[in-house]
């Protein structure tokens, strides 16, 4: 035997898998799975709303410039963490704290665009991916330095007591989440379809050259898009932090899930992003009923691979799918 560790004599999997007890086996779970369906649905919908918001952030940027910003999840994280800091650290009122936090995160989004995306606007896809990943590393670790690495929990907007609606128990915050999400969606819809700005953004994405000829400054559009998506991200962060704790490293996974949602719904479409978000959230939480919950994170990515293989356009179809980068 070399001077290294001697080979492990202990059999593997000793413990929780060998010592498996059959109580609460799959069959029973399955039988009373239907009784808990509403509960699962409600938690799925709550998470789905968040995924939808994150996905919206991705889509907003993509519509203005065909870039995927892998630092999107960090905006969510920053939204929650900064609000917590303002609320607990500086004792500002809730509303004000949230407002200031959103503004700060929007500023960060602008900074990101100016400092990273603009210099690399002509770079290849790979470089952009790596640059945004680097940005996300920087943002998350910096927030760990500034605000500490402990997970943060904001007080809910109204009331701690879970409501009893029929069989299922719902935290009031999740109702808040749904309501505000839909409000935000309406605003965004108006922004992108009713205002000149939104139309201009769309124009830059679909036909950059034409947009230039029309005198629309592409860089300005991308700049604004980053601000908007950062704002959406921060908003999502503030919404979820009361229910699920936000810690400095919770951004990455949320970002990926949101991205998957956007692809699932139809890449580059607001409606697609929302649909994808809810579908992903619900499927994820329902899937736990059928497979061991350890595989929960795998589910999202499995869905991703399937959708990419069988229907890259997503559920609602995508305007960009035939473009050069995809």
């Amino acid at each position, binding site marked *: *035997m*070399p*001077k*290294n*560790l*001697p*080979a*492990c004599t202990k059999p*593997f*999997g000793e413990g*929780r*898998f060998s010592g498996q007890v059959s109580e609460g086996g799959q069959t029973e779970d399955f039988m009373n799975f239907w009784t808990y369906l509403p509960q699962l649905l409600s938690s799925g919908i709550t998470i789905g709303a968040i995924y939808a918001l994150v996905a919206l952030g991705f889509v907003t940027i993509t519509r203005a410039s065909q870039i*995927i910003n892998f630092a999107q999840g960090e905006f969510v994280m920053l939204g929650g963490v900064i609000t917590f800091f303002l609320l607990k650290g500086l004792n500002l009122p809730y509303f004000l704290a949230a407002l200031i936090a959103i503004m700060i995160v929007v500023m960060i989004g602008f900074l990101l665009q100016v*400092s*990273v995306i603009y*210099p*690399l606007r002509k*770079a*290849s*896809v*790979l*470089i952009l*991916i*790596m*640059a945004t*990943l*680097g*940005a996300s*590393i*920087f*943002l998350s*670790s*910096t927030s*760990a*330095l500034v605000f500490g690495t402990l997970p943060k929990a904001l007080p809910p907007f109204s009331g701690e007591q879970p409501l009893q609606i029929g069989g299922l128990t719902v935290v009031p915050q999740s109702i808040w989440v749904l309501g505000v999400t839909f409000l935000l969606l309406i605003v965004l819809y108006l922004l992108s379809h009713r205002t000149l700005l939104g139309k201009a953004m769309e124009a830059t994405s679909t036909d950059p050259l034409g947009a230039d000829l029309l005198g629309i400054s592409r860089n300005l559009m991308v700049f604004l898009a980053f601000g908007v998506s950062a704002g959406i991200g921060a908003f999502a962060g503030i919404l979820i932090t009361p229910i699920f704790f936000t810690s400095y490293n919770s951004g*990455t996974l949320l970002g*990926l899930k949101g*991205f*998957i949602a956007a*692809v699932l719904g139809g890449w580059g479409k607001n409606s697609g992003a929302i649909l994808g978000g809810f579908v992903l959230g619900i499927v994820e939480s329902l899937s736990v009923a059928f497979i*061991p919950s*350890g*595989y929960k*994170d*795998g589910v999202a*990515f*499995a869905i*991703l*691979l399937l959708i*990419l*293989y069988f229907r*890259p356009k997503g559920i609602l179809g995508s305007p960009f799918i035939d473009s*050069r*980068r*995809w």
Partner: protein
Amino acid sequence: MQTKKEFRKRDFFYLLPLWLLSLIVPDADDLYSYRSKEFKRREFYYLGAVLFLPLIWSDPHFHHLMVLAGIYAILALGLSLFLGYAGQISLGHAAFFGIGAYTTAILTTRYAFPTFLAFWASATTAATAAFLIGKPILKLKGYFLALATLGFAEIFLVIVRETQTLTGGVIGIFGIPWFSIAGFSFDTYLKQYYLIWGVLLGLFLFSKNLVRSKLGRASLAVAASEDAAKSVGIDVAQIKIKVFVMSAAFAGFAGSLFACIMSTANPEAFSLGFSTLIVMMVILGGMGNLYGPIFGSILLTYLMDILGRYQEWSLPIYGVILILLLIFFPDGIGTRVGIRLIYLIGYWAKKKKRDEGKL
């Protein structure tokens, strides 16, 4: 006194990669020059350095770092075939690395395979996995390909964490024996150094031959323009698969060596961050030439080691450096640094002129 000397030595020792860089900076058209078999003088310098440096400089820390850098370099070399030559994107190579590591770990600790056999087995397993996953996802391009490979890596991690009975779950597998060939076990850093860099040299020559052969030209053509490639009868899908499987096999080799030298395999070591690091190595070294990944990996391994001093700050600094390097050397330090610097200096000079003009 003692401490002072230590200090000076250490600093010189961190300057080493820069010195190597100054040695390697190739002339601009070196990137494109007809890929011939003749070695240039520079290349013999490298070989000499690789052979004799550890002997001149018998410092365990240096050896250990170079061993690590060598392992990463094998992985990055394979990835650069896929990234730089075939022009595709993969954020999932950590998974193939992990597959290699786990194959070796399981075979050696549970079935008492000789490590040498496990070494080949790992490459085979990784290549097979690459073939199976590559068939469906390689029809994607750009962002979606990146995302799909990333998803594959995540799924791999989940599976590893969950199949306790085989992989030991999050606890992982311990006590993997040293790499040994016919009873000769590589149990010191020096021996490991020569093992790793020997393997690297072999694989390097292999890929050097490959890129100047039919297949290499075909993959370059795929990277340049798929239509043109098709128009001369190149089967694009097949070329992509071949290169992907190839790079996965490299990753398998690297993973096997990693498992043997770290004596353990656990899921945390094969996360997204690791994939990012490897891709950064390829990019920084410079895509589309084979020295790039090697120097990139040496550079980043040293960078990581230096950053260790800065405790909490190491990660933010890493992020900033990463972004700055991408902005200023988007096509690699190794390949274009000379041109880049000249350009910058020229720019500054012009700026100066302009200011004078204004005055």
